[in-house]
């Protein structure tokens, strides 16, 4: 994570931050002795620290599952999305415009719960066990997702070769910030996060279909998320912010 937007002794901050983070590192897969499950339920649905990354895991898993025609893995991806609250935002970037609504339905970089369940049903092809699992998610999704959402997902944008999209978003001091792009395939969609003086904080070249930048703002302020298509083909993406 990059500490950004002011001069500060980075090494000292790094140690303080590491102490704070590590002390509360709740991922504790190894916390259960003998590989056991942690005894206390540390539900992540309401744990903001994981929301955006959980959504990215679900997208990665969903793509892998569709490629392998693995219905059970699609169900697992759908369960993550169902349990992870997020809000939709209607930001339109400078230099960009939303993909046409009808066209957007054809290829969605960010798969929603409905998209996942539809694909799972199609691939399940009448398998009763799988259909039961799929129906369970559909019925239980409201119960799975709980807690406040600090993660937002934009609409779909098309970015032609050479084009640059710029989003301006405020972020709060001391709150870890994450921006991620989910493209409709591997390509050359580069994402740069810059502060209000246009100083680059993080760049992800976006050679995979998912790019991610995280940083820790030291001051309240506006940050620029710059999405650039440096390839030869048009690309389509959603932006996720936390």
């Amino acid at each position, binding site marked *: 994570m990059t500490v950004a937007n002011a001069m500060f002794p980075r090494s000292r901050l790094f140690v303080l931050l*590491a102490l704070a983070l*590590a002390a509360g590192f*709740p991922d504790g897969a190894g916390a259960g002795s003998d590989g056991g499950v942690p005894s206390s339920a540390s539900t992540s649905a309401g744990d903001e620290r994981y929301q955006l990354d959980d959504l990215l895991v679900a997208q990665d898993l969903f793509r*892998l599952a569709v490629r392998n025609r693995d219905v*059970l893995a699609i169900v697992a991806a759908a369960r993550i999305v169902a349990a992870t609250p997020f809000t939709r935002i209607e930001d339109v970037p400078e230099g960009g415009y939303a993909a046409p609504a009808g066209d957007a339905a054809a290829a969605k970089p960010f798969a929603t719960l409905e998209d996942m369940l539809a694909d799972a049903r199609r691939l399940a092809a009448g398998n009763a066990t799988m259909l039961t699992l799929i129906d369970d998610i559909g019925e239980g999704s409201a119960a799975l997702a709980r807690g406040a959402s600090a993660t937002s997902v934009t609409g779909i944008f098309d970015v032609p070769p050479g084009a640059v999209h710029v989003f301006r978003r405020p972020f709060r001091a001391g709150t870890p910030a994450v921006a991620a792009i989910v493209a409709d395939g591997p390509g050359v969609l580069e994402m740069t996060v810059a502060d209000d003086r246009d100083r680059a904080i993080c760049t992800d*070249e976006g*050679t995979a279909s998912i790019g991610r930048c995280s940083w820790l703002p030291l001051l309240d302020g506006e940050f620029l998320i710059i999405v650039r298509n440096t390839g030869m083909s048009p690309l389509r993406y959603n932006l996720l912010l936390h």
Partner: protein
Amino acid sequence: MIFRYLAPIVLLVLAVAVPSEAGGPNRIPHAPVVPDDKLRQLHVAADLAAWGRRNRDPLALIVAARLIAGTPLREMAGIKIEGEPNPEVLTALDIYMPDVLLGDAGRLAANDPLLTELIVDTREAVPRGVVARPVRSRNLVPAFSQDVFEYVFEALEPATIYVQGMGATNLDLAIEDESGNPICDANRYSDREICQWTPARQGPFRVIVKNLGPIPNAYYLMSN
């Protein structure tokens, strides 16, 4: 299929377009990542396992076990060039073994017949004794310390390094080329980090695993 034939040509063109002498970063900018990479699958599986444990979701653990079982690994002797030596036994890392994941799933599934059946099916399908690429080493990094490894990768062949910790602390992964140029910095709030790039020329890379926490963390280091 077309990509399979076009990819080497595209990489060659990209390689010609970047400086090949030492001093320029040893990576081809914007080279597409191979999407079906096995380490990527392990990364997704480990993230899914972590999510499943946090959310007490047996189905996630079952799917993670299936994905991990489908990606056999070859053990490799340590190649650590800086950092504390590793203990001989690191059982903490067994949390990613398919059998352990399925055991956890079984405890969470309790008496659910459908999930129990899936666990049995998966356990029977887990391949045993398969040896294949990619490779991995087991390591332990002390609190607030870093381990440094050296790997040599071939020119134009996509390189992947993946760190998979036991969940004790936050681990970050950084890659530098032989001149110290940053190649990748993976720094999620997690101990499962992946770096993928395509070297412009054959050469050594420093792989740095940083433990940001106040206690040691055991981890697998894997490469293609």
